[in-house]
């Protein structure tokens, strides 16, 4: 895969998992996976073993994000090899179990593709999350999905930041794909959001089927939004937030944020402006689960990645 003109060869993507309930209150994935566990007709494709799987059943049962710790941050090498059995936090045990079933992470036995279904309270629309700019298989899949969804929007968020990247449940697979669809409140199932996620997966599975049949996908370019940094809320000495996302920024995921633009509004009405050095594209604006992670929104920059042609080996 060294030059633009070479076609990259990948082995058949036969083992595919669809994860729902990694966060137990993100209802589209929970509902879709439960549906497909009962009747998997919709996700069947020739040459593909598609496995729907609820990753965090205890959190799903309580309709909460997690029980002890965030499962979608738990797949670190330390956690995956930690001894301690039942003394470990529930989600660390789950991570080890998931790694046994769908991994081991980094090994040839790992699943080919894992789709991890998430919702966000942010106005992100349909977003695909990419973990590596060098995964040409994923880039081609995301290009296929974007074109199939057009004119409806489906954007690609890429988190390759050495410090901000985190160990997701999907990272167990050779090709991890995050699906993030919003806005949807936690614990709520919105029909439009549910159907949008269903359509994304349909296209993704179609792509895999075509790939496995030997279709060659020519080189393409994919616009991505690369994660730059997380911006926290202003807080007081006790750690309580003292301002909210400004009404001008609220719901404006993916729109340019320029230096000097309103960013936060204090509880007594004062505006705090963005002080960055250039225009950024914010996303994950006002995500409910990120208050405790000290993240009001993330900044990204637009980039065009080039994917080489791919074909089944």
């Amino acid at each position, binding site marked *: 895969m060294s030059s633009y003109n070479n076609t990259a060869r990948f082995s058949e993507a036969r083992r595919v998992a669809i994860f729902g309930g990694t966060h137990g209150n993100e209802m589209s994935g929970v509902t879709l996976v439960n549906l497909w566990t009962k009747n998997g007709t919709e996700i069947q494709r020739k040459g593909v073993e598609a496995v729907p799987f609820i990753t965090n059943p205890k959190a799903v049962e309580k309709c909460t994000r997690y029980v002890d710790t965030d499962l979608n941050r738990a797949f670190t090498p330390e956690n995956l090899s930690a001894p301690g059995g039942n003394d470990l936090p529930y989600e660390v045990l789950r991570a080890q179990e998931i790694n046994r079933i769908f991994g081991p992470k980094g090994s040839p036995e790992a699943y080919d593709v894992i789709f991890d279904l998430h919702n966000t309270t942010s106005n992100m629309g349909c977003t695909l999350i990419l973990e590596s700019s060098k995964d040409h298989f994923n880039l081609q899949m995301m290009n296929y999905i974007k074109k199939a969804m057009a004119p409806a929007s489906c954007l690609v968020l890429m988190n390759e930041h050495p410090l901000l990247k985190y160990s997701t449940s999907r990272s167990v697979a050779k090709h991890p794909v995050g699906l993030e669809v919003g806005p949807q409140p*936690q614990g*709520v*199932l919105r*029909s439009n959001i549910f159907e949008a996620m269903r359509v994304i997966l349909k296209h993704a599975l179609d792509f895999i089927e075509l790939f496995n049949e030997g279709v060659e996908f020519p080189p393409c370019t994919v616009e991505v939004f690369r994660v730059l940094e997380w911006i926290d809320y202003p807080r007081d000495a006790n750690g309580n937030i003292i301002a*909210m*996302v400004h*009404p001008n920024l*609220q719901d404006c995921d993916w729109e340019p944020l320029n230096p000097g633009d309103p960013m936060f509004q204090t509880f007594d009405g004062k505006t705090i402006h963005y002080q960055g050095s250039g225009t950024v594209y914010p996303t994950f604006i006002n995500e409910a689960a990120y*208050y405790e992670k000290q993240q009001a929104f993330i900044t990204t920059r637009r980039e065009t990645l080039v994917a080489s042609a791919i074909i089944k080996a």
Partner: protein
Amino acid sequence: MESVSFPPLSRVAVCGGTHGNEMTGVYMVRHLQKEKIDKIGSVSVSTVLTNPRAVEICRRYVETDLNRCFTEALLNSPVTDSSPYELRRAQELNAQIGPKGSKEAMDLIIDIHNTTSNMGLCFIFYSIDWFTLHILKYLQSKMASVEVRAIQLDIPIAEAYSLESVGKHGFAIEAGPQPNGVVRADIHNMVKEAVDHIFSWLQEFNSGNTFEGGEVEAYTLEKSIDYPRNPVTGEITAAIHSQLQDNDFKLLQRGNPIFMSFSGETVKYDGEDLYPFFVNECAYYEKKIAFHLARKIKLTLPPIKVTG
């Protein structure tokens, strides 16, 4: 209509965090407490974070819904340390800003809530209370760009289960749509503006202003509709239809779509013309409510003024 007079409203409680993940009230009460606001003109203000343990874990409740604990029966039932937290807390709150039905109770309790439903700004109250309706009429005139609505729960005060029934007068402010755990500036600003106008109204009332009578529309709860469910497992089998989603207070008529099943079938409404609200409220899945239905009524208000 004859004018009605009332004693001044001089003790008001502003409450937030009754549901610990409904963030507008939490932040408003915290801000008022930080600024040490205990008097606004002639009105003394108590600010209460009603369910601090639920606020701390950002959940609706710890053991049981606090906002169902204020019936006379529950407020007078014996409690021990092992009783559910919220039952005990309700009795503490009743002692602090009640007791319900007594002379010592707060003149007015305002309890701030959020909903995931697209309800805008609503005032929820029990009995036909001239204060609440006059305040509503005043807000409607002052907040022209916001639809301010009244929802009446026709339940006798003794059986009234929510916090605001503890005061001599009270109402809940319900603002949405806002997800649990999130504070939206637009929703916060709308509620803050409403609360500021409420205190202006209280000043004017207390200083002798007569508020003219008139007519106010209100919605009164008629019935609730649950999600279609699997008869064996109880799991829901459909989502609110996209044509009903976000259309709170738009008249629902026979034949209109209300649910879309996961297998793609549309379920249609089969009933009399009514107004849906609390459409797809997160907390109501466990209460088996997909949406409420209301009748619209017209209420005639007498002019009111302070006694003396």
